[in-house]
């Protein structure tokens, strides 16, 4: 490997690659948001819902965790979305990643909800709250705080999985890496560079989440370093 030539390739492609970073960021912010908005109600239904609703959620989670993302991407981009008049590859990427993530996120939230003592909901009901109020004012604020560590796993996996949407030519980091690598004949250097970009993005995201976790921590729970 010619080191100088490799460095040249990276420097010359920098603006183009940074453009890809923004596409990736857009993809995962959109997908995580969609996954969150769907994942929370899915979790609530799975814990508190009626039998039929719970079964449907279990089915949803099973399908979206069980079918490979690539299959879903093709299915949605070529099969389902065109019927709805949507032909944006980026949007297809956000939707598929988001729907998948919702399945995983719902299980993280469910774990957190189930770790709350039942007395919390009882106390809320005793104050005359409706179930919806009790869940949104008492259960979720506590459960969501407890979900942050697990949620950070989902973030870092989704970030890496987002590269899969290059198969429908969304111009995110990996798609651009491949085209630069082809043009400059520097596949190894470009792959390493892409790896560094992903690592930095992961690191920033995890830092932010860890900070959030500390800021919203509730007194009375155990903490780092205190046994």
């Amino acid at each position: 490997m010619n080191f100088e030539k490799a460095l040249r390739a990276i420097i010359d492609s920098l603006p183009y690659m940074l453009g890809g970073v923004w596409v990736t960021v857009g993809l995962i912010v959109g997908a995580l948001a969609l996954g969150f908005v769907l994942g929370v109600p899915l979790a609530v239904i799975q814990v508190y819902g009626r039998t039929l609703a719970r079964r449907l959620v279990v089915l949803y989670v099973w399908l979206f965790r069980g079918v490979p993302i690539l299959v879903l991407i093709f299915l949605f981009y070529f099969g389902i979305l065109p019927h709805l008049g949507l032909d944006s590859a980026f949007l297809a990427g956000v939707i598929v990643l988001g729907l998948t993530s919702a399945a995983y996120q719902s299980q993280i939230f469910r774990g957190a909800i189930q770790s709350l003592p039942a007395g919390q909901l009882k106390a809320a009901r005793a104050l005359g709250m409706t179930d919806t109020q009790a869940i949104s004012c008492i259960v979720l604020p506590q459960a969501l705080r407890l979900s942050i560590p697990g949620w950070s796993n989902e973030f870092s996996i989704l970030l890496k999985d987002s590269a899969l949407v290059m198969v429908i030519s969304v111009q995110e980091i990996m798609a651009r890496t491949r085209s630069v690598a082809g043009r400059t004949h520097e596949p190894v250097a470009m792959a390493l560079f892409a790896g560094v970009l992903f690592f930095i993005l992961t690191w920033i995201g995890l830092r932010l989440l860890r900070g959030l976790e500390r800021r919203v921590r509730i007194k009375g729970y155990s903490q780092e370093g205190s046994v």
Partner: protein
Amino acid sequence: MLEEYWLFASERVMPGLNAALLVSARLIVPSALYGALLGVITGAIRVYGPKPVRRVADAYVSLFRGTPLVVQLYFWYFALPYIRVGGFAIVLDAMQASILGFALCSAAYQSEYIRGGLLSIRSGQIKAARALGMNPMQTVLHVVLPQAVRRALPGCGNEVVYLIKYSSLASIITVNELTGTARSIAKATFRPIEAYATVAVYYLLLVTLAVWLLRWLEDRMSIPGFERPRD
């Protein structure tokens, strides 16, 4: 057309995949178990360990969550033999390298779920254990972890599902598990769609089996007094 597919799948695809299923199982089961065990230990260290050890464990988790699994597998299989310490080098076969790679990566994620579970334990539980004269080790082992692991279980299930799906990456370092076998069949028969569709069903079955096992575990371990699905 469906009949034609079924004939093709059952004669040309499934015999190969059935054999590969065993390879995949031998890959996934030990990786999941070692990953869970190491994840629990790492998670406990990351919350209750002494500060420098906590930092090291945090760095391990950042590194393994931050880099793609393919890269990690390449490292264990291709690069590790070149790292010589005092003339010795560790050479792993493809299967060992895959299990090592999967277990270490899985443990990094599991430890995060466990950490979340640990932080959800109220401090009164720890106080009560200490008041009985338990040392920190006993407190964590007998009072905190048993509760934290239960709470982390739904999240840990996610990781197991991911592990099953990502086990396909072992084919890249020459392990002939489900995906690798499907690829050879696709090449040999020139019918990639049928081959890959069939292997997707195999993964779905594996995931189903895992989800079912995890559900059973959750039900067995559930304790009264916490939120849970109504029956």
